[in-house]
């Protein structure tokens, strides 16, 4: 990026002209194309909302980390660009046995790691064995969330509550084959092998990691040293890590010339942390960065009108109003929950507050997920009916606490406080008294809602991979305090779906589950809306992904 600023002298004049501020701000001039000469040095700068936690994706569970590591590490299975459909990654093909307990991966030939070593079945197994054999602090979900979600526990569980390991072992019958054995079939396979957390590291890198341990001494869990600076980590991705300048909040990557596929379109890729949302927009507008994610709904049109590229992603998330049933007896009454659903003008919310391209959700998954049902009960905006239902239930004077997070933007929920306010107005219109409870997202909100501390709350979910269980199973597979209900029928249904190895049968079970859920109405799905991503006019952006898994190797300068 080179932004010519020979106008330094004028800069000083600008200081004198500070009086312009009051009047000049509404000026419509736009400098979208200011970064005209960007191609010359070939550095693509992307504005990130936060620093990555670690350069080793297996220790992380947040999107900002994965956005970076996905460019460096590759997984056995990948997604087709722009879709949530699985395709070959480091494994060209894969298959499982009939019971879904043995997964064979046929690795791509000629793949080299950034440190020059080759990809072999042995290396893949070494990766999985490392995770399986983690001990001590690594066994905490803080460091091994995804491993525990997909593969259960460890070789030696040190904690009673850590789930039983579902991973059995990995063998490499030949150079280019790896066979992974699991104890129970699960809906998490094969989708789980596409998770960024399971990016494959090089053999030498793994050896180096072993000398460098995560520890929990002192005040905090410390990430192992290798994951905090460039040099040790080595993957197979189109970019390799050049440096992580924490003082600048910058991770810089550079093109890996020996990449097995098409090499990256830009020489250097920098992720620069810009925590504030409007600061990211202004940085793009002023030409300081070439793109950023989670564009606010109000900015989408602004940016596209000004010539920026704001490609639309397919929707792969769900935003819902959570209801904690056992926090208030009234909520255990289906009529009351139905009344709440009818009271909300979800279409208005989608039309005015959510990004363009959003739709009102009819069930707890977007329509792109296999298992989406067209036959669920729907609840139209009908305040009279809502009032009637409440009256019938004898709950005309219902008072509910409604929690919402502040200081946060989630892909499915931009500006939660505003969304809350609109919903509050809807609920009060049918006679429900709302007691607001605003909480900071981290840690207060997530903790309070998880513990069932609210009657109503706002939350959502972005899918990790295309399997219905990744949505429904997350919430309704067992009793959870945040939902506060026991429903063995539903729990059983999802258990059956999860362990059903046959894909079609599984999808049918998901459809059934969706219909069941929408009759039971444990919460109100609100919307599925595409999180927007924006790029400057002078770049060819990467194909946008519904899973927000953009591959920046595809990006280049015009």
């Amino acid at each position, binding site marked *: 990026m080179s932004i010519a600023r020979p106008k330094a002298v004028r800069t000083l004049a600008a200081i004198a002209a500070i009086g312009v501020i009051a009047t000049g*701000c*509404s000026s419509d001039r736009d400098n979208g194309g200011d970064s005209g000469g960007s191609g010359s040095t070939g550095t693509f700068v992307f504005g990130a909302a936060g620093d990555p936690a670690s350069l080793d994706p297996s220790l992380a569970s947040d999107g900002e980390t994965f956005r970076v590591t996905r460019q460096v590490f590759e997984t056995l299975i990948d997604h087709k660009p722009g879709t949530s459909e699985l395709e070959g990654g480091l494994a060209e093909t894969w298959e499982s046995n009939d019971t879904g307990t043995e997964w064979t991966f046929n690795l791509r030939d000629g793949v080299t790691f950034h440190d020059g070593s080759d990809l072999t079945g042995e290396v893949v197994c070494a990766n999985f064995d490392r995770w399986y054999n983690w001990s001590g602090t690594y066994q905490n979900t803080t460091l091994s969330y995804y491993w525990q979600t997909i593969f259960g526990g460890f070789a030696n569980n040190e904690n009673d509550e850590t789930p039983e390991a579902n991973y059995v072992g990995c063998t490499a019958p030949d150079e280019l084959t790896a066979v992974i054995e699991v104890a129970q079939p699960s809906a998490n396979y094969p989708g789980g092998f596409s998770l960024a957390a399971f990016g494959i590291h090089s053999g030498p890198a793994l050896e180096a990691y072993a000398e460098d341990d995560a520890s929990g001494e002192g005040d905090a869990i410390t990430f192992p040293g290798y994951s905090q600076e460039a040099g040790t980590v080595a993957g197979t991705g189109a970019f390799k890590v050049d440096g992580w300048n924490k003082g600048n909040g910058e991770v810089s990557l550079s093109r890996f010339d020996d990449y097995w596929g098409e090499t990256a379109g830009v020489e250097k890729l920098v992720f620069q942390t810009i925590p504030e*949302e*409007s600061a990211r927009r202004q940085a793009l507008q002023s030409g300081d960065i070439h793109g950023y994610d989670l564009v*606010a*709904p*109000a*900015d*989408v*049109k*602004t940016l596209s*009108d000004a010539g920026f590229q704001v490609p639309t992603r397919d929707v792969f998330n769900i935003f819902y109003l959570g209801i904690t049933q056992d926090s208030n007896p009234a909520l255990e009454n289906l009529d009351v929950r139905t009344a709440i659903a009818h009271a909300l*003008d979800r279409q*208005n919310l989608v*039309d*005015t*507050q*959510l*990004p*363009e391209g959003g739709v009102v959700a009819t069930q707890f998954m977007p329509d792109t997920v296999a298992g989406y049902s067209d036959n669920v009960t729907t609840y139209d905006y009908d305040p009279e009916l809502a009032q009637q239902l409440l009256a019938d239930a004898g709950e005309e004077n219902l008072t509910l606490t409604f929690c919402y997070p*502040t*200081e946060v933007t989630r892909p499915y929920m931009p500006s939660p*406080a*505003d969304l809350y*306010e*609109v919903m*509050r*107005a809807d609920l009060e219109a049918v006679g429900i008294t709302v007691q*607001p409870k*605003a*909480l*900071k997202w981290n840690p*207060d909100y997530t903790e309070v809602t998880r513990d069932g501390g609210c009657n109503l709350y706002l939350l959502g979910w972005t899918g990790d991979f295309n399997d219905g269980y990744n949505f429904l199973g997350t919430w309704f597979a067992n009793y959870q305090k945040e939902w506060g209900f026991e429903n063995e029928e539903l729990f059983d249904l999802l258990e059956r779906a999860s362990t059903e190895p046959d894909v079609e049968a599984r999808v049918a079970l998901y459809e059934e589950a969706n219909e069941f859920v929408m009759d039971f109405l444990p919460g109100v799905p609100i919307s599925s809306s595409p999180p927007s991503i924006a790029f400057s006019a002078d770049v060819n952006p990467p194909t946008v992904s519904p899973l927000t898994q953009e591959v920046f190797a595809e990006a280049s300068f015009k």
Partner: protein
Amino acid sequence: MSTKTAKIDRLAELTAQRESAGGASLWTEALRRLRSSKMAIIGAVVIGVFVLLAIVGPWIAPYNPLQQWRGEVFINQNIFVGSRSENWLGLDHLGRDQLSRMLVGARQTLLVGVVATLLGFTVGALIGGLSGAALAFGGKTGQRIDTAVMRFIDMVLALPSLLLAVSIAAIMGQSLTTVMIAVGVVQIPVFARLLRGSMLAQAGSDYVLAARSLGVRRRRIVTAHVLPNSLGPVIVQATLALATAIIEAAALSYLGLGNPDAAQPEWGVMLVQAQPYFDHAPMMALYPALGIIITALGFTLLGEAMREALDPKLRS
């Protein structure tokens, strides 16, 4: 004969006038000075208007500040509603009447400022007053108490006030009370230090020495002489602190710690909420911004004018 008495009367009259002018007390003098200060007048007028709005605002507000005009404002299309006959200041990003929110907000803003300042003033004056009294009249022990208290106060004073407020807000969760306390606590050390300093200056003054030499009780000296005379700068500070409190409350809103209750719109929160839409609806942000700036300016002007009026050094 009659001319003579007339002349004498006139003489008495003339001298009497002189006397009253010369014998005016510090406070009367300050007040007179204040009345002739343009700064003070502008400040007082601004504050007057603001306080009036704060009192009657919620009653004269044309609409419920929570009422949403549906289907008019589309933030994802950049469609906003500006000034129009039914909504003089337009609608905000959720379609609520901006004028009503401004009017109701005046009261919230004033409330935050006043309560926070009162808190800082009361606690600060208590600490500073006791500490100052201890030092001036408490002998060796008093001196030690004062040193300890003041060292601590100094340290707190050195802490960035905003971070202090943020940590208080972090403990207490988000609410109007939180904002008031967070902003008020920050003011405590300022008031404490000020009252103590001003008391010490008074304690060293001639009239106190005279009173002490006459055997007047310590407590009486403090309550009857030192305290009343030390309050001048503290009152000035209180006026200035009101301005600071309003701005600090806005800063807290920016950091996401403002009062989240939409029914109690506070100008700082309104400004922060409107900022993202500045490119398309600048007035939405400018109304609350100007409200904050002008009000803070009002308090600052009056405070500064009072300071000048009370400060003998600046008289000329």
